[in-house]
């Protein structure tokens, strides 16, 4: 896995011929209300189990009535036809959405083998259960996952993102709904001058608390926000990611808050959460200042077995990169890694930690654009910005930013191998422009493997499983199964590993959320490897 061996990273937009003609429509008005700038989450997932990754885009609605009936506002599902083209199956699948949508979380919450969707929105959240016949049914009310507060007025807060994870390790995926600002059309503020309004900063609005739904395993959910401590922690959440930060076997949660300190929720034995971001050095940037955290990705960047944190934020704030010090705390390496200088001019939304050149070191991706359409006339900062990949040198440093698309008002993103060539591709939404389907065409001889986990006692998607891969050259990598990645979206849940010049996998070790540990020897490379959790695995942690 010599980083020098890897060739340059190259992406090409598949363009209109891909059949993906989705345009993110924020229904903006002259006053630029804050709601119109933060939409655009999308999901890359296989809804029809044909082995090909499909795409689901969330979309806005008309204002001020949040009506989604016009086709230009529909959320859209595109089926991957496998020949480089996608087919719009939104109507057939029944997933055009309701109200003003922001994010989507894809996972098989009912363990029936078909990936479902939770769409978060301003006025409506929707739980779409995949029926397995190419269509979905709205189970929001029946499942009790409306996104409304259980206590008090029962109000529906503005939800931006969702996170599927199994916090209590009972084999059923639970759902964290990430809520943003206490905004409505009555308390709307305007900022900037007439004719060139700005999106108001989040400090002009109050905080909201998030909602945690526990999956009862019978298709319904119980709001456990109060009993787990989630409700007591108000914030301005835009996205969330989960991982076992301290290796205690329980999935912790990081919540990216806009303009205030981020939260790191330590999972106390699947019963409650304690906020420890300040203690562990993950609350602020390295100057102790809150940034406009928008997207977040958790993965092991330095191959030490512990998940690190990568956050996107606004221009001049840098994108914080926090290295996990073996669960004891985080070391802010934003500048020492070289990332600070590279990201300072950028504003990022979607974020991903993935190995785009298959050299065995995970790189960073960000989907970029400033939040305010008119920012350039005030500060000279471009609103439309190119998307970038920051290549991991393998020594903890990122010394170059590769622009992988022209400037646009990019928002959400998802990572998946769309064409089965072993190279990770990207899909990015952009306000007022066609979504980009960026196919990875990097030329190198590096090898790869894609692990498709199937949980039995664990949740069927294996979300939360920690996988350790060891190659014949002795190199070791780790990944944690997740679907919520970056900004208000989901990437393909399957685990991709770039293997560099390694030609054999010595060992794959899977630590399932159930506690089972499974080892596979001599797995084949350059292919998808399906790993099914044993029903009666004796070895437990």
């Amino acid at each position: 896995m010599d980083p020098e061996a890897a060739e340059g990273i190259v992406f090409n937009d598949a363009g209109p011929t891909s059949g993906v003609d989705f345009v993110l429509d924020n229904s903006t008005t002259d006053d630029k209300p804050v709601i119109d700038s933060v939409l655009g989450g999308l999901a890359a997932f296989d809804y029809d189990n044909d082995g090909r990754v499909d795409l689901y885009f969330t979309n806005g609605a008309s204002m001020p009535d949040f009506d989604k009936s016009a086709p230009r506002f529909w959320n859209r599902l595109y089926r991957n036809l496998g020949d480089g083209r996608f087919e719009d199956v939104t109507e057939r699948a029944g997933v055009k959405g309701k109200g003003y949508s922001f994010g989507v979380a894809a996972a098989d919450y009912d363990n029936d083998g078909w990936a479902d969707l939770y769409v978060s929105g301003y006025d409506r959240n929707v739980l779409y259960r995949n029926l397995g016949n190419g269509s979905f049914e709205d189970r929001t009310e029946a499942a009790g996952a409306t996104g409304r507060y259980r206590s008090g007025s029962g109000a529906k807060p503005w939800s931006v993102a969702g996170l599927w994870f199994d916090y209590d390790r009972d084999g059923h995926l639970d759902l964290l709904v990430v809520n943003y600002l206490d905004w409505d059309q009555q308390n709307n503020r305007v900022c900037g001058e007439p004719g060139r309004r700005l999106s108001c900063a989040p400090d002009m609005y109050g905080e909201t608390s998030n909602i945690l739904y526990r999956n009862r395993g019978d298709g319904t959910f119980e709001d456990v926000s109060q009993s787990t401590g989630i409700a007591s922690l108000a914030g301005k959440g835009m996205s969330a990611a989960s991982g076992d930060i301290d290796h205690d076997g329980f999935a912790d949660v990081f919540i990216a808050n806009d303009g205030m300190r981020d939260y790191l929720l330590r999972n106390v034995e699947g019963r409650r959460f304690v906020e420890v971001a300040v203690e562990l050095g993950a609350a602020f940037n390295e100057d102790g200042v809150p940034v406009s955290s928008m997207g977040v990705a958790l993965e092991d960047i330095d191959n030490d077995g512990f998940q690190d944190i990568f956050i996107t934020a606004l221009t001049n704030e840098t994108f914080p990169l926090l290295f996990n010090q073996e669960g004891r705390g985080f070391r802010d390496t934003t500048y020492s890694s070289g990332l600070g200088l590279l990201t300072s001019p950028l504003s990022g939304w979607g974020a991903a930690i993935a190995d785009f050149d298959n050299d065995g070191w995970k790189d960073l991706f960000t989907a970029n654009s400033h939040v305010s359409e008119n920012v350039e006339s005030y500060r000279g900062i471009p609103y439309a910005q190119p998307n970038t990949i920051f290549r991991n040198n393998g020594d903890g440093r990122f010394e170059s930013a590769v622009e992988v698309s022209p400037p646009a008002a990019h928002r959400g993103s998802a990572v998946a191998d769309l064409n089965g060539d072993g190279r990770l591709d990207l899909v990015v939404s952009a306000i007022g422009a066609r979504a980009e389907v960026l196919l990875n065409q990097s030329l190198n001889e590096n090898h790869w493997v894609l692990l498709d986990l199937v949980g039995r006692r664990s949740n069927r998607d294996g979300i939360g499983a920690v996988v350790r891969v060891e190659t014949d050259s002795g190199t070791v990598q780790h990944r944690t199964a997740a679907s919520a990645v970056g900004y208000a979206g989901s990437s393909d849940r399957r685990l991709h590993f770039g293997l560099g010049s390694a030609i054999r996998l010595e060992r794959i070790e899977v630590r399932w959320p159930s506690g089972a540990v499974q080892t596979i020897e001599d797995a084949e490379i350059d292919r998808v490897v399906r790993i099914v959790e044993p029903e009666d695995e004796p070895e437990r942690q």
Partner: protein
Amino acid sequence: MIKGFQMLFMSALAALCPLKAQTCTQADTALPAVMQALGQGNVSGAEATVLELPAGQRNCPSAYLALGRIEATRGRIEAAARSFEAYVRARPDDPTGRVDLARTQLLAGRPAEARRNAEAAASRTEDPSMLAAAAQILQSVGAAGEAESALLRAVELRPEERTLFQLGVFYDGRQQHQKAEAAFRRVLHLNPNNAQALDYLGLSLGPQGRMKEAEEAFLQGLAVNRGPSFDAFLPYNYARLLAKLNRPKEALDHLNDAAELAPDTRAILYERAKVLAGLGRGEAARSDAEKALALADPANVVVDSQVYYLLVRICRELGDAAAASRYADRARKSPAARNTAGR
């Protein structure tokens, strides 16, 4: 010597009596003397000059202007405002009185009135220094567009070092780094040895990703850092750039210099603590950070929560879990630093 109540009486009179058309030669002549006395800190002398005017002359506009400035120097803002209001009523087209009035209104917490008078002043003058003064007030009340227009007009009328510097600082404060750079380069064209302008130039180049040029600007600034443009924070700002460039040892050297130039400055000790922590010198870092905590920082360059947050990390890495926990608790309870970078 004039007693306070006499001054108050005169101010009240100024507010009440309509100004009459009259010859005000003596009052006009006395005004420079009043200003000179105030410039020398001789407030009593200034007051005496006004009181020595014949009674009829004390109702002259210049007398009100002089009185307003005396009151303002005394810190009696409302009284000063009344005198300036009287002056402006008499000479509505004189931008000087408008600027004086706007300044006192700003101090009195009346930003809308301050803005109105500053805008009026800016629209009635071709004097660059008056435009610059009006711009400062406009900037303070959040009228950034008007402030920028006034400053641009000032430098167009007379591109002098001071006004260009003010324009650069204006852009720096609004994070318009390219425009700030252009203004500071014009300052340096007029005076290549302006260390403060070189400092600001470095600060405006850094966020543009032009690190090498930023470093050159700081180094040039350090080489000429003396005289009227001496800048005690230049080594500090250069050190922050070096820290971002991952050159912590050099950053530490310059922070040591900065600590000598501006001792007992919280921002410098905080920054040095950060660099020391990064170098693994935990005890020294803790010492600096705890000293920083004890120092006042009225401008809130580094607020308490930032220092507490740093101390959490330092103490955690030193293995002092109890102290880390204590500081974490304080970091949570203290108001967070305001993020001005992103929006």
